[in-house]
């Protein structure tokens, strides 16, 4: 048995990597939301001077990476790997946004769970002694996601109350082998869960079982109790998925309500910003983690955080073929200090 593997799905890192710096860039709507104070940059409009939504998303990635290097006081040649992904077909936002970086690149796809996926793999690369500095980065863009997964923006249609709003934004995290924290100590890699939800306008419901499964497995594998964490935060379940996740956990005898929240619920003012069930997308959990949670940890307001990014692993083709939506969730346990 691998010595760093505990329980069924959890990895306990022997040499926990430090989160050296983060960077976050968001769109104008997110810049008017509940967390507007905490982002590094709020872009003035969704196109940001580019000629297409996809190019604008690549620019988000490019600028988030540049901002991260600046915040971490690192140069390109010090980075051993970039782990990045997004929601667009063939992950073009990441690969085009990072093509001029001249840094070894591993593209990832875990839908909206990509941020936790990249942080998990990055941490293991560092813990294993394969790298000193790893950049984890994801992005999403409301307009590019809408046209890929739903309808043209100008189409006069109505959203259902359960629909979520794809966050325009990018979040980046620099992991390093040496540093003073926050440290990534445990990782619980999630399983694909599918309870048969087919409604693309209710992704929270599709992802909630996966989130609950990963949370339960994390506590079972580590033997921890929910109170151990100051914050247990899922990626983008939204208002309805958050409730469903709590329901499933409660039925399994685990109550995490006191310190549980969801990035999709946190980022927008759901009542005033007309985002229905809340935010979604790779950029949602990435920007909330990089912009808000990391900074709260550095201020000392949060000491231990369980960050669980959640993803819905469908494609427009699988939906048209009447397939249900599989969900995935990965948990990353982050500690301000090693006490």
């Amino acid at each position, binding site marked *: 048995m691998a010595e760093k593997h505990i329980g069924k799905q959890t990895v306990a890192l022997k040499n926990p990597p430090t989160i050296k710096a983060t960077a976050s860039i968001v769109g104008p709507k997110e810049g008017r939301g509940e967390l507007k104070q905490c982002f590094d940059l709020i872009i003035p409009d969704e196109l940001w001077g580019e000629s297409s939504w996809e190019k604008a998303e690549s620019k988000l990635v490019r600028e988030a990476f540049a901002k991260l290097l600046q915040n971490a006081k690192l140069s390109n040649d010090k980075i051993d790997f970039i782990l990045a992904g997004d929601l667009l077909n063939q992950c073009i936002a990441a690969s085009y946004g990072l093509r001029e970086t001249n840094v070894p690149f591993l593209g990832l796809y875990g839908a909206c769970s990509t941020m936790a996926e990249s942080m998990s793999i990055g941490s293991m690369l560092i813990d294993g002694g394969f790298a000193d500095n790893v950049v984890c980065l994801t992005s999403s863009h409301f307009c590019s996601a809408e046209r890929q997964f739903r309808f043209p923006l*100008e189409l*006069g249609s*109505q959203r259902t109350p359960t629909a979520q709003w794809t966050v325009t934004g990018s979040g980046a995290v620099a992991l390093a082998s040496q540093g003073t924290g926050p440290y990534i100590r445990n990782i619980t890699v999630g399983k694909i869960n599918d309870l048969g939800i087919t409604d693309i306008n*209710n992704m929270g419901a599709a992802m909630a079982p996966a989130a609950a499964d990963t949370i*339960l497995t994390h506590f079972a594998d*580590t*033997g*921890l109790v929910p109170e151990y964490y100051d914050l247990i935060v899922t990626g983008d379940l939204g208002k309805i998925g958050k409730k469903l996740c709590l329901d*499933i956990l409660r039925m399994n005898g685990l109550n995490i309500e006191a310190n549980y929240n969801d990035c999709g619920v946190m980022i927008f003012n759901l009542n005033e910003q007309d985002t229905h069930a809340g935010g979604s997308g790779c950029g949602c959990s990435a920007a909330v983690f990089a912009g808000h949670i990391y900074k709260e940890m550095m201020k000392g307001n949060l000491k231990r955080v369980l960050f669980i990014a959640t993803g819905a692993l469908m494609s427009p083709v699988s939906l048209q073929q009447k397939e249900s939506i599989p969900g995935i969730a990965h948990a990353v346990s982050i500690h301000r200090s090693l006490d």
Partner: protein
Amino acid sequence: MPEFTARLVPGRDIIMKQVFTKEEYAEHVKRASPNSKIFINIIKAFIVGGLICDIGQFIINMLKARGLDSEVVSNITSIIMIFLGALLTALNIYNVIGKFAGAGSIVPITGFANSVVSPAIEFKTEGYVMGLGAKMFVIAGPVIVFGVCSAMIAGVIHYFITYVP
């Protein structure tokens, strides 16, 4: 390096139980998800849809007053309404109306114009041929296909009723 100190609760045994079957989960999700406000949506659709038809009727009356015969009038009215739908789509106004009115602005001919023009605008970034040209009917295409098919069927039935004794 201090060992990771697990706050283990003795005898604690958490295993993800299959608490829901797919059917039970679907039922639970349905209960947890708010429904669309159908009654208020119907009223909004009725008012806006009615207003669009009023505008159409107003144009018909104006054209008739100028002495055009009724077949020409209905053709010109359709052209004007399609133009207005396309124009409001390009000005980014029709989606705002659509968000408020729902079916009220989808069903009239202006909604059809919106469903053609909106992908044309959206996919222009992939070029005029493979983008705008190819994607223009991505929403309206099925409506045209099945519209033509049902017109054919209706035509055949009409033929048999009218000409076959």
